[in-house]
């Protein structure tokens, strides 16, 4: 079950993934998503920072470096609030599976790493649905840094935590900032009962563990209707050349 903040159960299931950059969480969620679709489930996928109403403001704030730790925090909360009310809660009420790449724990970790009061930011997100399972992809800092920084990619200002002023060098700043975020995550494992996946394990074996944990929650979730035109194609020996195959990602 996923639960509303007041404890009321919702028929759908919410699975979310968390972890520092380079933990491989998005890859794992993507593979899980495709598997669930293949099993005929109705799956809604939602990403951090993607509300159509709020995203432009966040982008403007990042591009022009207008964001302070506090406005950074609030605009991300606005983004999740919009997705919560328009996407996540309705889908869960309908009995669907919702997959979220990053959730409130990302905000708790990043905002605290930026010096925001921990109790304040936990109150801020009181509107959030309590997930069925919150996966935390645990990886040592050195390993994640190696994965991200090999090839010296260009690091974005806020991504590198340059706004925090830990170091003027983007790479050094990124290291220190990620270290702080990692520390926040580690403290949240017990606080929020996060389901820890060893992200140094192989991709396949991580996925097996994730599926084993997800599977027992899948009884009774919403199934997709068999695709209506498939029968027509079979009976009439058509290819469906002009049908729109825009499913999946």
């Amino acid at each position, binding site marked *: 079950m996923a639960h509303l903040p007041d404890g009321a159960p919702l028929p759908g299931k919410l699975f979310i993934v968390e972890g520092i950059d380079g933990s491989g969480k998005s890859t794992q969620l993507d593979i899980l998503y495709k598997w669930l679709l293949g099993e005929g489930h109705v799956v809604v996928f939602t990403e951090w920072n993607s509300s*159509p109403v709020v995203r*432009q*403001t966040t982008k403007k704030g990042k591009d022009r470096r*207008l964001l302070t*730790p*506090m406005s950074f925090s609030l605009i991300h909360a*606005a983004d999740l*609030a919009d997705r919560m009310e328009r996407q996540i809660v309705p889908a869960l009420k309908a009995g669907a599976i919702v997959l979220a790449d990053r959730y409130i724990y990302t905000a708790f970790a990043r905002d605290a790493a*930026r010096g925001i009061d921990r109790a304040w930011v936990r109150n*801020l997100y009181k509107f959030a649905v309590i997930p069925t399972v919150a996966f935390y992809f645990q990886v040592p800092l050195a390993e994640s840094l190696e994965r991200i920084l090999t090839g010296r990619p260009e690091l974005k200002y806020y991504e590198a935590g340059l706004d925090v002023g830990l170091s003027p060098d983007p790479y050094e700043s990124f290291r220190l900032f990620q270290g702080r975020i990692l520390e926040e995550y580690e403290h949240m494992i017990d606080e929020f009962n996060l389901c820890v996946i060893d992200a140094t394990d192989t991709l396949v074996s991580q996925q097996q563990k994730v599926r084993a944990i997800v599977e027992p929650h899948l009884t009774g979730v919403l199934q997709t209707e068999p695709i209506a035109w498939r029968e027509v194609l079979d009976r009439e020996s058509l290819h469906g050349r002009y049908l729109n195959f825009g499913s999946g990602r």
Partner: protein
Amino acid sequence: MTKMQTYGYPLPGMPDHDLPGKLIVIEGTDGVGRSTQVALLREWLEQNGYGAMQTGLARSALASRGITKAKQGNALSPLTMDLFYATDFVDRLEKEIIPALRAGFVMLTDRYIYAPIARALARGADPEWIFNVYGFAIVPDAVFYLRASVGSIIPRVLAARAEFDYWESGTDFLGGTDFFQNYRTYQNSVIEQFDAMSQRFKFRIIDANREVYPVFVDLKAQISEIVADMRPR
């Protein structure tokens, strides 16, 4: 001096000493004449040798466009709107209000945290949640609550705008198409929320059912006292 004191939660990077300016807030519901009074007060302060600045709800560099666009689409749920307004507020607090206070200005603020809190509460927000969200706000030197009945606001609003606004009538959550009835219902409930906050936040209540001039005279008299210690003796 504006004391660096917030409503319970820290603002990261906040100055750790009092600031030489004054933070003066003009609050009240739709149509009570806030912006007129702010414009008059600013000019009066400047004529008397004070530095004065003004800011107002939803005017931040960061979020004002986003809020306007989102409102046009009617796609904004109350919760998202609450957080959008909070984003707008913190942007102005950090980028406009605190720098002005640091530089010794009288900062006239057309609606502060109380209006967005009142609109949230009128739409059913959890009071503890919304008060804590705004817990990082600096306690102003004075909050003037321009209080007027809905009956006396309606002719002013109609004369100025020729219609009842979708959001100011609460039609976003009350529904239906009776903007007039919605406006009365909603504005009355916002007034109730302001009234309920007035003790906790030490509002100075100004009777705004009156003409512009007597309201201005009242404000001027009280603000004179507040800014008196900013002049060299």
